Every structure is written in structure tokens, then in C-alpha cells.
């Protein structure tokens, strides 16, 4: 009951501040606008379907990769973090949290109420963007593959929710707004930029250590698998590969954006049977874990804090 009233109050606040309006316009222009441009102008009258834009674009030999989901993921993550990173620390620094917690709201109500409120803000504005895109395709003669399109919208919602969760976690554990902001920028940098370096570096490091210890070095397929596994722990990458799976076989989706050498190394093994830790449900579970775990960590810290 009070979780709901905290969420409702938070959502109304976003409405009043025009943040929701701004985000909605932004997503309408970004998703709707890019779709209208693509189908209305670039591919006008070619009878293209929704996969042309939203699916994978891979040039022969893997020389060129593009996915709309990859690009949208960066934007969604940033927007979700910006929306959520102040959710608790702003109220703590201004003192409005004292009014909120003077009332019979528990700290759990406050953390999860904020989570729900901010998630709704991002989801509603994002959905408007996808609806505009849907109409853009319908009016410009693009064929809509409804099932995969709906799946893509749902996955985008999950990604947005994951980054709102991460933002709420940062907000709950930070002692000042500045800390929350630096944390946000830092984490975004890690997810968007640094992660691939880590994913490449860790197997090499492990291999080096193993060699120093005089043990058998990792085989090439093991190195590639380890790299891919770390890669898909990143919610951005998990999202991208899950979207790719909507438009093609799972193996291709997992190896999307992998280098030619890597592909050759593991493709045959994967084609026989994809290890469970690269299966769609497993990757989806990773994405869901990013929604569930950070707010729990945040709540745990917030519950102990002196306000």
C-alpha cells in the first residue's frame, strides 16, 4: 500500500517536472524518428520488413556489424541511469526523505517504491517511442514482424529496468549527490566501454597465471568461451544478443560481433550444442538478475544508514 503511494508520488513528480514529457519526446524522436527516416526515406517502397532495421546487420565475413539494439541499449542505459541515480540521495540531501519517513513508510517501501516509480517513467516514455515507430512502419509500408517486434520491446523494457535498478542501487549507497553522479558516470563507462577490454583481458590473464604455474594452458575454444561468458554478464551485451536471437538462430546471436577467428574457433562446437550458459534462458536470467540484485544491495545499505 505505501510502496504504491511512494511510487505514485514519485511518478507524479516526474510528470510535474516535465522529465517524463521530455523523455517521451526524446524516445518518440529517437525510435520513432529513426524508424520513419529508415522506412519512409531510405528504403521507401522497397517492401522492407521490421527486421531490416531492428535485426542484425552483418556484412559477409563479419567485416561490418551493426545492430539497432546495440545502439538503443547505450541510450536506454544512459537515460535509465540519469533518471534513477538521484532517486534516494536527492531526497536525503534536500531533507524531503524526512517527511517521507515520518509517515508510516518503511525504508523498503521507499527504495522499492522509487524503483517502481522511476522504472515506470522510463518504460512509459520508451513505449511511446516504440509505438510511434510501429505506426511509422505501418504508414511507410514496412512489414512488421509483430512477434519479434514485441519481443524487442519487452527486452528493451527489461534493459531499461536493469539500469534503473543499478541507478537506484547507486543512489541508495551514495553519501552525497556528487558521489552518486560519479558512480553513475563511472559505471556507465565500465558497461559501455571498459567491459570488452576486461572480457578480453581476463582469459589472457588466467592463461598467463596457468602457464606460470606450469599447468596446461587454456585451449583456444576455452579462451573464446570465457571471453564470451564475461561479455554476456554485461546487461548491455545480454540485451543485444537476446534481441539478435529474436531474428535468427541462437548460435549466430551469441557470435554476433565476434571476430572471424573466434567464430571459426567455436562455431562448430556451438552448432552441435550450445552450452547451457550461452543459452537464451541463461542470458535472460543474467538480465533479470541485473533487475533484481542491485536494488536488494541498495536496500541492504539504505536500511542500515543513518539519515
Amino acid at each position: 500500500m505505501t510502496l504504491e503511494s511512494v511510487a505514485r508520488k514519485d511518478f507524479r513528480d516526474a510528470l510535474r517536472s516535465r522529465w517524463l514529457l521530455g523523455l517521451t519526446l526524446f524516445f518518440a524522436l529517437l525510435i520513432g524518428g529513426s524508424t520513419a527516416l529508415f522506412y519512409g526515406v531510405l528504403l521507401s517502397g522497397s517492401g522492407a520488413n521490421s527486421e531490416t532495421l531492428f535485426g542484425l546487420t552483418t556484412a559477409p565475413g563479419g567485416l561490418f556489424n551493426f545492430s539497432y539494439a546495440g545502439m538503443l541499449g547505450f541510450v536506454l542505459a544512459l537515460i535509465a541511469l540519469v533518471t534513477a541515480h538521484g532517486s534516494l540521495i536527492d531526497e536525503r540531501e534536500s531533507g524531503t526523505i524526512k517527511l517521507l519517513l515520518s509517515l508510516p513508510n518503511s525504508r523498503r517501501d521507499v527504495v522499492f517504491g522509487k524503483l517502481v516509480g522511476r522504472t515506470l517513467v522510463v518504460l512509459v516514455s520508451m513505449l511511446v517511442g516504440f509505438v510511434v515507430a510501429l505506426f511509422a512502419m505501418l504508414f511507410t509500408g514496412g512489414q512488421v514482424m509483430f512477434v519479434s517486434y514485441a519481443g524487442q520491446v519487452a527486452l528493451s523494457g527489461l534493459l531499461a529496468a536493469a539500469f534503473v535498478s543499478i541507478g537506484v542501487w547507486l543512489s541508495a549507497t551514495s553519501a552525497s549527490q556528487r558521489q552518486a553522479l560519479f558512480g553513475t558516470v563511472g559505471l556507465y563507462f565500465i558497461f559501455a566501454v571498459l567491459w570488452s577490454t576486461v572480457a578480453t583481458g581476463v582469459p589472457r590473464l588466467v592463461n598467463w597465471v596457468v602457464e606460470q604455474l606450469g599447468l596446461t594452458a587454456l585451449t583456444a575454444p576455452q579462451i573464446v568461451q570465457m571471453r564470451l561468458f564475461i561479455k554476456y554478464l554485461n546487461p548491455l551485451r545480454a540485451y543485444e544478443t537476446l534481441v539478435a536471437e529474436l531474428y535468427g538462430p541462437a548460435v549466430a546471436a551469441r557470435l554476433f560481433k565476434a571476430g572471424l577467428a573466434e567464430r571459426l574457433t567455436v562455431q562448430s562446437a556451438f552448432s552441435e550444442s550450445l552450452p547451457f550458459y550461452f543459452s537464451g534462458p541463461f542470458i535472460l536470467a543474467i538480465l533479470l538478475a541485473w533487475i533484481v540484485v542491485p536494488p536488494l544491495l541498495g536496500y541492504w545499505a539504505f536500511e542500515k544508514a543513518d539519515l
Partner: protein
Amino acid sequence: MAAIELNGVTKRFEDDEGLFDSLLPSSEPDTVTAVDDLSFSVAEGEVFGFLGPNGAGKSTTINMLLDFVRPTGGSVRVLGHDAQAESVAVRRRTGVLPEGYEVYDRLTGREHVEFAIESKEADDDPDELLSRVGLAPDEADRRAGGYSKGMSQRLALAMALAGSPDLLVLDEPSSGLDPAGAREMRDIVRAEADRGATVFFSSHVLAQVEAVCDRVGIMRDGRLIAEDTIEGLRDRVDAEATLRIDVDGDADLDAVRALDGVSSVETDGDRLVVGCTDDAKTRVIEAVEVGGATVADFETDSASLEDIFLAYTEGDDPADESEVAA
């Protein structure tokens, strides 16, 4: 059952800057003891004034009642509930005017009150609460971001009153209010007490405490240094009264000075100004008349609570204060 019960409560703050600093190798932690082994209780239906200078630990104590801050040691019980484990149950029956709060800029006054009513699952009429604290309907429909400090304070009080709480915890309720507002605040406190609510409020505006409290506690350096009725406090301080006597003829000043309980004797024309304890007043007048002079008229000022408060919190000699006042 006591409405509020503190038992050996201590709160030490450590200089903790949160997640990032906790990752750094820490130097010696900076510890401040805000509340030190504090024990007292407030009975149901009582109006309890919580006094003390800034930094005495009043707000920390109140924050522990509300579970904003967790005690380092000891136990806090409010309305029969553990203040930490059952904080929501406490706040369901408590109206709070916190210290250092801020209103929501973008919500109107009425929405604030509606939110409080909804959270407390009460069925009050928001307009009634708003008019009770003196917020006009057109003010209530404005966003609270534009409110003055006094209006915010009225709004927070309206939120506190929602749901007819059994306990009101008011931290510096009259701060930001003009004298008329402070009087309305006092009237509301009285009305709530008449309804049967327990009222616990902190203040450094002593006139507020004197006018409405059944009992007061005075904090200093994290400890409760006095806890009594206002009359009882007066007696305990053995406060000085100032006696002004209009005298015909020459009074025997030395005889007056020699009396027990007399601390100062000054003349101001035909007027004697005598600083003495309350019970020495009769002896002073007798001594003046025995010495051959006639008492034409006299007046006394007893020590105000302000004097007592200052005597307790600053360790000043109350005589000094009353001389300044005289």
C-alpha cells in the same frame, strides 16, 4: 504504559562517507558521541518539553525515536513498540514534525496532506487539516516549492496531525513561525493534548515550553541534566528573585545584606533592589522595617524559565542573569 521510554541510549556517530570511502584504507575514525547513556520516559497523555542548546543531542534523540538514526547502544521504545524493529508501527500512530526536512517542490500543499492521509490510511478531510494550521485554500493549491519557511512548517504540522496520532513528536515546531504562528502552534499542541495525545517537543523557545508543558527535560552534551515539572525546576535551581522595594527613610543595608539568601543589595534613589532567593523575600522586608524604614511598596520578579535554562545549560550563576535582567 509509557509513550516514550529510553533506556541507557547512546549514539556515537562515526565519520562515514559511504561506499567509496569505505573502500579506501581508513585512518582513525572520527567519533562523536551525540547521546550518552540517556534514560528517561514520557507518560501517555503528557506534554513533554525537550530543551537544550544546539548540539546537545535533542534532534539525535528524536531521530532515534523515528528510526532515522540507530542507537549505538541501549533501547528505545515508543508507544510500546521497539523504535527500530517496529518503526512503521510506531509511525502509524505518531505525527511527526521533523527537523531539517524539506517539502516537495512540485507537489501542492493539499497533495502533501493527501499523501500523509493516504500513507496513514486515515480518513481525514485535507481541507480541514489545512485550515486548522492556517493555510488558506488558495495557498494549499499552490506548489509547496514557493512556500515560505513558516508556510512549510504549517504544512508539515498538518501532515503530522493527519490520522489523529496518539503521539506527536515535534522538533523545534515554532522555528520559522512569526509570533502569531507560534501562538497558533501552542494552541494546536494544547488541543492535541486535550484530545489525549502525548506530545513530545523540543525547543529552545522557552516561552513555548513554559506555556504548554507538563514536564520538561533539559539536555546538555548528550545527557539529560534535569527532568522535572517547571515548578520543580524552579525550586531546584533555587532561583533568584529580584525584589524592588520603595522605602521611606533610611534602610539598614548591612542588616539586609547579612540575611540568609540575599546575594546583592543596591540602591536606586529611594528604591532598594535586592537579589535574593524566593523564600528570603519576607525576611528582607521584615529587616527593612525592623531597621526603622517604612516599606511604601514592593514588587518581585521571579526567575523565568529562561534564567533556569541558562543556569543549567551554560553553568552561569543565575544571579548574574537576573541582575542583567533587572
